[in-house]
Each structure stands twice: as structure tokens, then as C-alpha cells.
């Protein structure tokens, strides 16, 4: 398994990233990332919170300064960002729109920016179950409806490339299932999808390729079934402590041979563990009288648990 396996060669690339680096002060959020995404390919950026997935997506959008080169369908996002963004739709984790705006005003504004007839754009709202909501204020929409609106806005000009940042994170189970079906449809329509997520089971099933990010670096990439076998049923456990005990817990687990990742959170750490050792870190922490305030278990392999256990 290498970080450069499955390099796209069969069709022109929609997205090309070369030596992309993004720093926030002394913290390197994205560290020399090289990545190509073929036209029509669905790539999932996967990794724990703080791995650099969202930052990399923002670099691709060209909305934050970065070092390196990113091209979208041949357009350099730094030199010709406007043309590049015309070819991309973006679905954020939680869409932020001026709350006083209505759905009608929001859709009309984005449609005009994207040179699409507002009438056509509004007529297309029915596809996303938003018909009859034109006069409703955005701030009164439910989380699922907001996500549908985000998807409708991202696809308003039918761009060939879609970037999705943790698209399912604020949705209930039914809304998640619905969104995944919509993404599956977009995939079959030939859209290029770059999705970042830390939920494995949901998004891996639509992925042609999974790119694993840790500490801003690409540490592995392959087809989901091969990557799942490689990870061998490993799991990631997110553990939350009081801020005074976090460092003590991380040090203890490292001493016991676990891979511990800290992502800048004051209270949370991520531990990578083999499938048959899931209870060991919990036992070790209990014996050391370190109190776990919360835990989330994420399966690394597709089709397995992948649930959040609180």
C-alpha cells in the first residue's frame, strides 16, 4: 500500500493537487499533498477530525491562501479561481446563509452569480423536495432541509465537480440515507465527487477511491475494499477527557503501544486500535483512574459498524 497507488491515468483529471501546503501559524494543516481525481471519479477523503480534510477542500475551492498548485479541469484555482469555481459546487458541513433571507432570495442570488436563469433554478427546487418553501426563511429550515438547499445551490449550474464537506454529519438517519441515494445518483450521472468524511461506512460505499489523511498528509489511498482489507478491521476510537487529564491519557496509551492522534482539541484524542483490542485502552485508562467523559467508535473498514456509540 502506498500513498501514490492508483494514480489516475485512464481519463483526464478533474482535480490535480501538487505539493499543497496550508499552514495556520505554526500548525501545518495540509502537508505536501499530491492528489489527482479523474473525471467522473468519486474520491472520499477520510481521517479523524483535524486531519486536514476540510482545509484541503477549502484550498481546492481557492477560498484560503495556500502553497503548491491546484487545478480544476485545467484552471489554476489561484490564478483563475473564478473560472475554477464556476466548474465546482460546494456543500459545506452546515450551510451558512444570512438567516433573514428566504429560500427564494438565496436561490435567486446564487443563480444570478452562476449565470443561470432564476426561474429555471427555482423550478428545479422540486427535485430536492423544496417546492413550496420559496418564501420560507432559511433560518427556519430543519437541518435536513438546509442540507438539501445546500445541495440544490451547489448543483444550480450543473457543475461537473462537486465538493462535499462532511455532508451527513448534521443529519438524522433517514436524511443521511436519502442524501447518500442522491450522491449515488450524481455519481452515476458522471459527476466528479470529492467528499470528506470521518464516517467510514456511509461514504465508502459510494467511493471509487478512499484517501486516508492523517496530520494533513496522505498516508494511504486505494479502492475502498482493498483499503478495508489493509486496515484489517482496525477501528478509530475518539475519547474525550477533562482538559486536565487529556495529556496524561495520551501519554499512558502511547506507552502501551497504541497509536494516538491529537488534533488540537483541548479534550479529545483519537486512538487507532486493532479489532480484537478495542477494550484494552478503556481498561488501561480505567485502571489508571482516568475518567472517560465520552467515546465514539468508528470502524475503519467499509460495511462494518461505523457507528457512533455514546
Amino acid at each position, binding site marked *: 500500500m502506498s500513498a501514490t497507488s492508483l494514480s489516475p491515468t485512464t481519463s483526464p483529471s478533474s482535480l490535480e493537487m501538487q505539493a499543497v501546503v496550508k499552514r495556520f501559524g505554526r500548525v501545518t494543516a495540509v502537508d505536501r499533498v499530491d492528489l489527482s481525481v479523474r473525471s467522473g471519479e468519486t474520491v472520499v477523503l477520510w481521517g479523524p477530525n483535524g486531519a486536514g480534510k476540510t482545509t484541503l477542500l477549502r484550498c481546492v475551492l481557492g*477560498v484560503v491562501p495556500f502553497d503548491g498548485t491546484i487545478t480544476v479541469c485545467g484552471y489554476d484555482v489561484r490564478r483563475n479561481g*473564478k473560472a475554477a*469555481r464556476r466548474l*465546482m459546487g460546494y456543500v459545506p458541513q452546515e*450551510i451558512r446563509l*444570512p438567516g433573514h433571507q428566504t429560500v427564494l432570495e438565496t436561490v435567486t*442570488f446564487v443563480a444570478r*452569480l452562476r449565470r443561470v436563469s432564476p426561474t429555471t433554478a427555482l423550478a428545479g427546487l422540486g427535485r430536492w423536495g423544496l417546492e413550496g418553501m420559496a418564501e420560507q426563511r432559511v433560518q427556519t429550515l430543519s437541518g435536513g432541509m438546509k442540507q438539501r438547499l445546500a445541495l440544490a445551490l451547489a448543483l444550480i449550474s450543473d457543475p461537473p465537480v462537486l465538493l462535499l464537506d462532511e455532508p451527513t454529519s448534521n443529519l438524522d438517519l433517514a436524511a443521511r440515507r436519502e442524501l447518500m441515494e442522491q450522491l449515488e445518483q450524481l455519481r452515476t450521472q458522471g459527476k466528479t465527487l470529492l467528499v470528506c468524511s470521518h464516517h467510514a461506512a456511509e461514504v465508502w460505499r459510494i467511493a471509487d477511491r478512499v484517501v486516508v489523511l492523517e496530520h494533513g498528509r496522505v498516508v494511504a489511498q486505494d479502492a475502498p475494499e482493498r483499503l478495508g482489507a489493509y486496515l484489517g478491521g482496525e477501528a478509530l476510537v475518539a475519547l474525550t477527557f477533562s482538559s486536565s487529564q487529556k495529556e496524561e491519557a495520551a501519554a499512558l496509551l502511547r506507552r502501551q503501544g497504541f497509536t494516538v492522534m491529537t488534533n488540537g482539541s483541548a479534550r479529545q484524542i483519537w486512538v487507532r486500535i486493532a479489532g480484537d483490542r478495542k477494550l484494552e485502552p478503556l481498561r488501561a485508562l480505567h485502571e489508571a483512574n482516568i475518567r472517560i467523559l465520552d467515546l465514539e467508535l468508528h470502524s475503519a473498514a467499509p460495511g462494518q459498524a461505523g457507528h457512533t456509540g455514546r
Partner: protein
Amino acid sequence: MDLSTIALIAAKEFRDLWRSRWFAVMAAAFAALALALSVLGTALVGLAGVAGFGRTTASLLNLVMLIVPLMGLVMGAMSLAGEREQGTLLTLLAQPVTPTEVLVGKLVGLAAALGAAVVGGFAISGLVIAKAGGWAELGDYLAFAGLTVGLGIAHVALGLWISATSRRSASALGMAVFLWMVVVIFGDLGVMGTAVVLKLTPAQLLWVGFGNPAQVFRLAVLRVVHGDLDILGAAGLYAASRLGGWLLPILVGALAAWVAVPATIAWVQFRRRGAL
């Protein structure tokens, strides 16, 4: 730079601003105070025996110098920083727009909203004055209104500069209020104190005045309304005699520079910082 994109962003900014409660309150307060001053001015006609635009201009000048810079600074400061904090700036920049179009669109939209508020206040006040004293000196009054819009836009640009460098709207607001105090409240005292301590010549005092947009505005309005600058003492006399007929164009140019320079710095900062 695409003008239709700028127009779209400007129109949205204008609409959003007029929907915000604080701006509506500020605009209404400005109009009410301008109306009160003009009513008071015309009520005193019988006592002083004179009326018209010139008389009210002097009272309005002080009101304008207090309120308009504050409105402009706060509008500009809250614009980018507020959107950055709410996350709506990221949504906007993810569209096919350039940072330049966003900044220029916001500047135009804010300027138009502030201009509408100023023109509204001046129009209400002007109608009251004209009813009592006729239309004499209307040209001067209109020039005064125009310069007031210029003063407002200069402070919007300064506010955008603050906004482009701020992540939080609260810190941007704090800086805006501090700058307002420096420009308006301490500006006069600072110049007077500096002149005394450093024994500035009238020429030096005049150039120090160019370092404050509110002082540039005051010089220009007094030049338009009174013709001479005797009221400002030695510096005013020096300006009138040294620059003569060039004084007003130079002052208007200086006010334009107070728009262009902060807006350019805001543009550089905004491009450097991006959506975060």
C-alpha cells in the same frame, strides 16, 4: 472584474443593511436630528432675522461630523468580519466570484446605503428650511450633502480595512469605535495639543489636518459654505491664501484619497486572508 457580479453583491449588501435594525435606527436618528436642527433654525428666524440653508449648515456640520463617521466605520467593520464569523463569507467566496468583486461590491453597497440615509436626512431638513426661508443657497446645501456622502464613504473604507483584518465582529466593532473616537473626539484636541507642544506653523497645522478625513471634510464644507476659512484661524487663512482656488479641489481629492487608500489596503488584506 465583472460589473454585473459587483452590482449583484452591492444590491444584496444594500438590502441586507436596510433590513438590519441598528442601521435603520441610526438612519432614523440622523434624519430626526437633522429635522430638529432645521426646525429649530427656522423657529429662530424671527429673533435673528435671517434664515435659509447657510444658517442651518453650521448646526448640521457638527451633527454630521459626529454621526456619519460612526455609521460608516461600523458598517464597514461589521461587513466582512460579521460574514466571516457567521460563515456566510465562505458560502459567498465558494461561488464564481473574485475577492476583488466581493470587496468592491460591498463597498458600493455600503456606500449606497449610507448615501441613501444621508440624502434622506438632508432632504427632510432641506424641505423644512426651504419652506421657511426659500431656496437661496441651495447649491451650497447640495454640495454640503455631497461632501457628507464622501465623508461617509471614506469611513466605510476605513471600516472595511478593519473588517478585512478581523476574524471576530466584536473586535472589529471595538476597533471601529476606537478609531471613531480618535478621528472625531480626539482629532481636534490632538491637533490643538500637537500645535501647542510642537509649535507648529500654520502650514504644518494644515498638513496635519489632511491626516484626518473629518478635518478634510470640515475644511471643504466651510470653504463651500463660508467662502473663506477665517473661522479656522491661522491655518485656515494660510490654506486660503496659499492654495487659493485650488483649495477645494485639493480637499475633495484628499477625501477621495481617504476612500481609495484604505479600500486598497483592505483589498490586499482580504486577498491575503481569504474566507477565514
